[in-house]
C-alpha cells in the first residue's frame, strides 16, 4: 500500500532493524569520543579556589556573589555552599585567581572576603 506522505511502498522500505544497524555501529566510537572529550576537559581544568564569604545568609544573595566572581577573566565554574559560607571557584586551564581580584568581586557583591584558599602552587 502506498504511503501517502512519501510515495514509497511498505515493501521497499528497509526494516527497522536494518535501518538501525549503521547507527549501532557508530554508537561505540561516538560514546568513546564523548568520554575522551569529557575526560580531557576535566583533566584540562585549571586550579580550584575556596573563597570564604562573610555575610552570605540567604539563597537570593548567593546569585550576586556567583555573578560577580563568575565575571572574573578565566573563571570556568562557580559553586556556592551557603552553610559553609564558601564559594568554590574553578579556573580555566592555565588561569589563576588572584586574591585581590576575588576580594574586589566579593566587595562588589556587597559582602566581605573572609578567607581565600588557593591550591598548592596556585596564586595567593
Amino acid at each position, binding site marked *: 500500500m502506498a504511503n501517502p506522505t512519501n510515495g514509497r511502498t511498505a515493501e521497499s522500505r528497509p526494516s527497522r532493524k536494518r535501518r538501525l544497524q549503521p547507527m549501532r555501529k557508530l554508537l561505540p566510537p561516538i560514546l568513546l569520543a564523548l568520554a575522551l572529550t569529557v575526560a580531557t576537559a576535566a583533566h584540562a581544568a585549571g586550579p580550584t579556589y575556596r573563597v*570564604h564569604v562573610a555575610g552570605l*545568609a*540567604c539563597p*537570593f544573595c548567593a546569585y550576586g556573589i556567583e555573578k560577580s566572581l563568575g565575571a572574573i577573566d578565566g573563571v570556568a565554574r562557580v559553586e556556592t*555552599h551557603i*552553610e559553609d*559560607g564558601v564559594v568554590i571557584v574553578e579556573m580555566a586551564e592555565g588561569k589563576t585567581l588572584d586574591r585581590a581580584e576575588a576580594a574586589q568581586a566579593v*566587595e562588589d*557583591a*556587597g559582602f566581605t572576603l573572609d578567607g581565600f584558599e588557593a591550591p598548592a602552587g596556585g596564586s595567593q
Partner: protein
Amino acid sequence: MRTDDARMQIHTPSSLSRSAPGLLLLALTASLPTDATAASQTFNTALPVAKGEFVFRQQLLYRKADDDPSALSRDLEVRGSISVLGFGATGDLALFGVVPFLDKSLDLTTSGGARVNRDTSGLGDIRLFGRYTAFRADAKGRTFRIAPFAGIELPTGDDDDADSLGPLPATLQLGSGSWDPFFGVVATWQTLQFQIDAQASYKVNTEANGFEFGDELRLDASLQYRLWPRELGAGVPGFLYGVLEGNFVHRAKNRIGGADDPDSGGEQLFISPGLQYVTKRWVAEAIVQLPVAQNLNGAALEDDVIIRTGFRVNF
C-alpha cells in the same frame, strides 16, 4: 521603602470630593516594596544588590476598605500591579524604580439615596530612590546592615480624572500631582535561620491643585523564619520562610485650600502573616495585611484587608 499604603483615610461627606481612597492606593503602590533580597514584603531591606545586578519584582495587590462610619457607606476596592526594578550601582549603592498600575473603585450612597460607583485605572505615581549601605558587619552565615535611603515620588499618575458626577476626589485619583520627597533608614539582621528587618521612613507630601496630602511617618518590622529545609546541606537549597510583619503608619491631616481636613489622617497598625520561598534566582511570596488598630480622624475610611502576592527575579 514601604509599600503599602494607606493613604486612604479620609473621606468625609464634606471632603469626599477631595479626599478619599485614591491616595491610599497611590501610596499603596508607589511605596511598594523595593527590596531585592529575601526579606520583607511590605518594605525595603538593607540587603545588597550586587554591583551590575538587576532585580525585578512584580507584585499584585488587592485592598478593601468598607468600614465607613458615615452615611455614605463607602466601599473601596483597589487592585494593583506594582513593578519594581532595582540596579546595583556599586556593592553598597542600589537604585530603584517603582511603577504602579492601579484600578480603583469606590461605591457610595449619594444624598438622594442612590448607590453610585466611581472608578479609575491606569499608571500611578512612579517612585525613584536610592539606598546606600552605610554600615555593614558581616560574619560567617550572618550579617547586620544599616542603610539610609531617599527618593521622590513623581506626579506621573493622572490627577484630574473625572466621571459623570464630576472630578474624582483627590484620594481616588491615580496620582497626587505633586513632587513628594521621602527618606528613611532600614536595618537588617540576617542569619541562615532567620532575618529581622526594621525601617523608619518619612514622606513629605507637597501641594498640588490646592490639595495637599498629610505627611506620612512609617515604622515597619519584619521577621522571616526558615521553616524548610530544617537542615542545610551542600550547595544552595531553596528556603521556605514563614513571615510575620508589622506596619505602623501615622498620617497628618490633608489640607484643602490651606485648611486641615478633619476627616483625614490618623494612625493604623497592621499585623501581616505570610510565606516566602527563596531560591538563588527567584522568590515567590504572599502576605496578608490585617489592621489590628485604626485610630483615624473623623469619618476616614478604615481598611479591612490588604493582600499582596508576587515574585522576584535577579539577572
